[in-house]
């Protein structure tokens, strides 16, 4: 019996009051695979990512990470979500130091600060950071954790061109480290070249699951030119 899948979801569903944001999703992502999740706004990308990373619990079905229920495997999962999760009054460095101590994270604070280009502003309160800088700090915390399973929710959003290059670089680093990666994005053409598989979501259901090379031309064409709208 080979190793259990990095992420295994069986008939997954999550509803908010009357609406099923995600329903009937069954997928299995082997370890060290990099998968892109794309689809129109409201197709359930963010909800699916938050359920798979155990940020929110499923209303139906179950998520297993490396054979263990996701909630118990949080130490091995890292999520970059829209909300950056920082404390405004603390400095960038303090936020990372807190995360490192609380989550017993292996990475080095100064190392990740350099990696995301925030070394010069590390000691200013996050309250003074721009949206792009807050996102870089969120990336720094993600790198600090060195998790086996990494979920990125629209990583390119709110970043300048250098930021986009940073995201590409992070994706390559994750590939080199053999992490299992899930990326939800609208940058379909750009990310298709960096991942192994692509899953297309349409109003809460998996519409297509193909190797990255065969992503449909329509989807590629649909990718917006600029950042993640």
């Amino acid at each position, binding site marked *: 019996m080979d190793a259990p899948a990095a992420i295994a979801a069986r008939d997954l569903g999550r*509803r*908010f*009051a*009357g*609406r*099923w944001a995600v329903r009937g999703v069954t997928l299995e992502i082997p370890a060290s695979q990099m998968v892109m999740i794309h689809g129109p706004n409201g197709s359930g990308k963010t909800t699916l990512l938050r359920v798979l990373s155990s940020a929110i619990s499923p*209303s139906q079905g179950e998520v297993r990470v490396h054979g263990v229920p996701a909630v118990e495997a949080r130490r091995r999962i890292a999520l970059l979500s829209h909300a950056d999760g920082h404390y405004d009054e603390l400095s960038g460095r303090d936020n990372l130091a807190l995360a490192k101590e609380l989550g017993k994270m292996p990475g080095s604070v100064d190392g990740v600060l350099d990696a995301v280009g925030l070394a010069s502003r590390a000691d200013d309160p996050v309250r003074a950071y721009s949206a792009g800088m807050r996102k870089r700090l969120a990336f720094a915390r993600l790198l600090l954790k060195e998790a086996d399973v990494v979920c990125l929710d629209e990583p390119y959003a709110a970043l300048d061109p250098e930021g986009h290059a940073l995201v590409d670089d992070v994706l390559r680093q994750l590939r080199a480290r053999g992490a299992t990666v899930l990326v939800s994005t609208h940058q379909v053409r750009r990310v298709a070249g960096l991942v192994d598989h692509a899953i297309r979501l349409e109003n809460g259901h998996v519409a297509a699951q193909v190797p990255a090379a065969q992503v449909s031309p329509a989807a590629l064409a649909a990718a917006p030119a600029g950042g993640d709208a």
Partner: protein
Amino acid sequence: MKHVWASGAAAVLLLSVGTYIGFFHAPVEQYMGITQKIMYVHVPTAWTALLAFTAAFVASVGWLWKRAWTWDYLLESTIEVGIVLGCLLSVQGALWAKPTWGVYWDWDPRLTSVAVMVLTYAGIAALRSFVDDPVKRATWSSVASALGYVNVIFVYLCVKWLRTLHQPQSSPSTVDPAMVLPLRINAFGMIFLAIFLVALRYRMARARRARELEA
């Protein structure tokens, strides 16, 4: 549905019989005179209000343990009925205290505890109205309800202690056996009425949740 209407009918019957006996057959209490007759509606309301809040506590523990929607419907209905009965009890308490003590509110530990419970559960009803997600609404209001119910013991003790420093105990002590009958009839009457009200409100909660949760 038949048994709900039956419970309502039983309530009306019992309350009328109990009140009739209480007024015309039970002896007039030697010390308190006529005002003691308020007891036949006041004490049953008190028991039923406490029963309703206890049912709300059971419902919240039920939801936190089993996460079955019936507990949430029960919580929603017992809160509403409990609040109305609690408010009614406070008004009755005032109408009883004025002729007996010359003041509308004499900080009787039991009455004050019920009044604080009404405030607590009114806060919980407000919480329920400000949370949109049904699951969170059920869980958070159950947590608040459990905390609020456990707290009532402290409220009773503190008020009772605070009062014994200032005023002697004010509740009637001896109850003439002839007075027990109307009291008990009315008590069952009020309980059946509460069951009728809770049952209706339960079905309303179920209908609302069905509309809220339909895909």
